């Protein structure tokens, strides 16, 4: 990575895993038990980030004349939030060829968003075969 390329990122694994299921990115923090759901344009942007593309190359793949500043602002906020939620981490590797990014659908700030379900905390650490609560059903979060 050269400084000119800007920072690049990778999945924060462990403890986070990520899969695309029926067009939805499902990312799970296995330590915290938090579940994250990304849909719409955020899916392709997420995939490009995990492939090691630099944000400016991702913006370039979606930009139409004059749209670049707004796309870049939205992506910057998106990445900040992904870092804050510890879904991504900066790549430590240096060098390497730039990652080609296929043309992307443009996004708005609202579209580069995701949902976080913190009420799933601990659920994935449980064995849902055996954990149930008489009143609350199955499975139920242990406190």
């Amino acid at each position, binding site marked *: 990575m050269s400084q000119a390329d800007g920072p690049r990122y990778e999945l924060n*694994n*462990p*403890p986070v*895993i*990520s*899969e695309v*299921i029926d067009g*939805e990115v*499902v990312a*799970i923090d*296995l*330590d915290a038990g938090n*579940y994250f*759901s990304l849909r719409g344009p955020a899916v392709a942007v997420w995939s490009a980030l995990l492939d090691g593309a630099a944000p400016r190359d991702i913006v370039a793949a979606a930009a139409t004349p004059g749209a670049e500043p707004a796309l870049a602002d939205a992506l910057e906020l998106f990445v900040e939030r992904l870092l804050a939620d510890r879904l991504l981490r900066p790549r430590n590797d240096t060098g390497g060829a730039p990652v080609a990014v296929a043309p992307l659908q443009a996004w708005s700030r609202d579209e580069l968003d995701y949902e976080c*379900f913190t009420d*799933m905390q601990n*659920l*994935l*650490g*449980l*064995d*849902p*075969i*055996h*954990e*149930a609560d*008489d009143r*609350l*059903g*199955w*499975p139920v979060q242990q406190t």
Partner: protein
Amino acid sequence: MRILIVDGGVPLRGADGGSGAVADLALGLARLGPDVFFYPDGRPDPAAGEPITGLTLAGEPSKGPSGLEPWLQRHGPSLDHAILSRPGPAGKYLPYLTRFPKLSRIFFGHDIHHHRLRDARAHGLPVESLLVRGMEALERHLWRKVDLVVYPSPEEAAAVVVAEPMARAIDIPIYRLDVPPPPAGEPVPARRDAMFVGGAAHLPNRDGVAWFAEAVLPPLRHRLPDFALHVIGAWPAGLIGELQRPGLYFHGRIDDLALEMRMKAVRMAVFPLRFGGGVKRKVVAALAQGLPVVTSPVGLQGLDPGAGRGAVALSAHSADDYADAIARLASDDDLWRRLARSGQDFARDHYGHQAYDDGLRHMLGAADAASARRRRQNAE
């Protein structure tokens, strides 16, 4: 050979089927000769039950992954296989094992959890849809990332490859059962009633017994007025109160000896399971004891179709099916003897010591081949 097993906790004696399967796995592998080390994700809870003895612990379990890391630094390079049990612990610990390329990584899934969760939701049980998706994501991630996926039924192993064609999945028997010799001169007519084994914390059990009490028991008792179902296992008093009706008795948890005596006294085991995954230990355990079984196709899941499902147990789906099968088994001594014998033969052939040990050898061989393939692909 050195093997590490990681699970969500220490297996407990006489607890759930999952604990039994992990205990059988660890102790069964050790019996074959390898050095087996066990790492439970978390400190054992003395209140939860009596831990299985005879396991060699690795690292400091109370510390989670960080408690295993120093141990892995020392022993990782000399390990041959790592077996990760259940999705949650497997997902958590897999990244710590991938730094040892020689080590084969095996995911021991017990059953496909997201299928069971999805089916439970379809039956109206309180399962969040996002949990189904989350569990599917985790399981499919594991299927792709490990060298070998192991499930108890061929249906589940096949489902893995359909979903993730690059995955390698096999089925092996996951229970190692003692199968006693057939009882000589069995006084069949002296047996009466039916038993169900399983606690309410396992939702398929809760759903099944509630459905049976509501849909099957009342009409069945018109045909067999003295028929009773005896439920063995932990059921909360409130739920027992809700389900209470003539012919339904809850006995709570009982020890192994009392369970064996109960199995010798009843005429049949009935498992009215409407959903659930994997091979059910309770079904196979009843067959092993020569106790004829009436259950659903779900209850028979994973039992080798080649062995003839109709021959080892009576399959039922609707309430009428259950009533008919139970009434037949209650009155036909020849049928009872045939099922008792064929059930024991099946259990011995598929879940006896020899079959179990053969399954473990098959698993280790398949894992060796799969990890060698991974290393070749990485080198290319």
